[in-house]
């Protein structure tokens, strides 16, 4: 129908902690050709309720439909798109870099600049752990590319609304 710009969206989905709920949500995205970029499932304050944070790339009109279809699922309590809202969005990354003694100082300098830390070190390698906005992690990765990045693992984004209101 409408053509609108493809954009990245961050959704939070609060669900009753019942078997199959993740599969049902995944079906809704897959059916409409949306790729899920990242997905974090975690428990919430209440034991029987889980929280999912999903980032997906797609056009907003289609996404609105997906949100409605997800909300319709019996075990979904609510689903909100936080794109453009005042929210805290963070993720964590572990980066394994091929870095011997000679490179160590520079890698540590880079890590330090991004308030990341080294969590493992051998003769030939280091693991850097960074926490923060995706942009910050991207920027750090760009610098680390100079060394050989052996492995990268990112948690996916988690989101929380600012202020006293719950997300």
């Amino acid at each position, binding site marked *: *129908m409408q053509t609108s710009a493809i954009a990245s969206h961050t959704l939070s989905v609060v*669900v*009753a902690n019942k*078997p*199959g709920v993740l*599969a*049902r949500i995944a*079906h809704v995205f897959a*059916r409409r050709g949306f790729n899920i970029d990242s997905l974090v499932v975690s428990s919430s304050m209440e034991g*029987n*309720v889980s929280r999912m944070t999903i980032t997906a790339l797609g056009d907003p009109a289609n996404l*609105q*439909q997906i949100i*409605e*279809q997800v*909300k*319709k*699922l*019996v*075990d*979904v*309590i609510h689903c909100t798109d936080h794109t453009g809202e005042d929210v805290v969005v963070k993720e964590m990354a572990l980066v394994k870099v091929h870095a011997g003694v000679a490179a160590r100082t520079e890698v540590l300098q880079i890590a330090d600049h991004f308030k990341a830390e080294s969590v493992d070190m051998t003769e030939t390698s280091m693991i850097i752990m960074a926490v923060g906005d995706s942009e910050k992690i991207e920027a750090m990765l760009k610098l680390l590319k100079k060394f050989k990045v052996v492995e990268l693992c990112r948690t996916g984004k988690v989101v929380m609304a600012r202020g006293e209101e719950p997300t």
Partner: protein
Amino acid sequence: MTKTSSNWDGAQMLVKSLEKEGVECMFGIPGGATIPIFDALVTTGTKIKFVLTRHEQAATHMADGYARATGKPAVVLVTSGPGATNTVTGILTAHMDSVPMIVLSGQAAAHMLGKDAFQEADIYGMTMPIIKHSYLIHDTNHIPRIVREAYHIATTGRPGPVLIDVPKNVSVAPFAGDPEAAMDLPGYDPTPAAPDPRLIQAIAGALQKARKPLLLLGHGAIIADACAAIRALAEKLHAPVTNTLLGKGSFPETHPLSLGMLGMHGTAYANKAMVEADLILNFGSRFDDRILGIPARFGRDAVKIHVDIDPAEIGKMIQPDIACVGDARMVAEALLKAVGKGDTADWLKRINAYKKEFPLHYRRTGGLKMQHVIEELFTLTGGKAIVATDVGQHQMWTAQYWKVDQRNNWLSSGGAGTMGFGLPAAIGAQFGRPKDLVISFSGDGGFQMTMADLATACNHKLPIKAIVLNNSYLGMVRQWQELFYDDRKSGVDLLGNPDFAKFAESYGALGLRIKRAADVRKVLTRALEYDKGPCVVDVHVHKEQNVFPMVPAGKALEDMIIEPRPRRGRPPARKK
């Protein structure tokens, strides 16, 4: 060992819980994984009536027909593996058309799941995208809660099918839980909010301004029991009304304000009205692609108002100018109070001129026409019957010629378009409404998909009238091939059809045959008089009739073809 209510097992608890919800009728076929449940039907002395069918798909359509005709859900009880997978088509059919249904499937024992156990099929996973909700029971003690939830989910909000998959160990284990356990559905609140008065004012204002308003009624209007309120509203506004295929019965089609069905094979005047209307007020239709033509050109100049219980329907196909999420009946009743009399004299004059100029018509000469048979039966019964259809040309002609005046008297697979639906749906409806006349119209193709269940109708002496409109073709597909593929017939010739009358007799049903237009009334009268069991009428109709009007796929409503083009240079008729 005799079991009493104090030491029931899972299977018995399952049956008693269903009974407690008010389930009266169950259709299905047993198997290894469900023997305990079938045993519980005996040992609990339940009041639920169990109907053994010949195929699980037919069982689902029976439950579907029962629900459409009564408004109450029925249960389908099948075994694991192939028994369960045979219900998939029926689940889709019910889901697409918002029909409540509970499917109970047996399952291999829980400790065997994922190990390719005998007759293990992940029916829970398989049906996920085509079902309202589903359960795989892990604990016998959860049974009462799950049954309560399943019934509640199936029947409330926008209704739909719910599956409960029951591993064998769960049904044989002793029950030690709370039979009164409460539902636990934090994510499900189907209670419609009272309509927002400002929204009602906005809709009423738009209605009052409109000079060419048109009401569009879908299945939702029937499900919400909004028919009386909508009728009063239409009459107060003097607004014409059109309905979708599943909306048949939401507004009397014999009413002067009715335009009948719109869409791909709708009446010319309904489609013309839709094109010209300056306001479209939609109650409970999901703007299906079969009524839109080209979505971007649908109701371009009209104020579009969409009333639907399901928020996900708003803007899915058509972006409305006013969206109203809510119960159709509550909204119609509120609107009725908020509007004054409408001034639509010019509009109605125009529409009535269309009705005169482009009526539904066919010629009774030149071979026996399906329309003739449908119209004749309508006349003979005064339209007082529950009508089930199959899918194809006969379905569209029945929709055109059989005017439905009452809700729950029209059973047709709309969203899924499931061939094989008609006969079992009629059987299910007759179980639900034993005193009413039930007629099914099927094509020769679709009838053969589920006709084995004539046995079920015979066993229960159901006096259904199964009309087979036999054109020896998969007619609807042949029509498309003729019109859009230069008449290249491919895979549509039903060579090898049986003699349906003899087939009926072999089951002990009455088998009748019509070959000439002159015999239609006589034979149909005989069919109507017969009350000892089912009657099948094999009607040999003209083979190559096409359904018109027609909005070709991918064309806008205004591009509807009202009359067939004269045929030129057609190849010689095929030899049989």
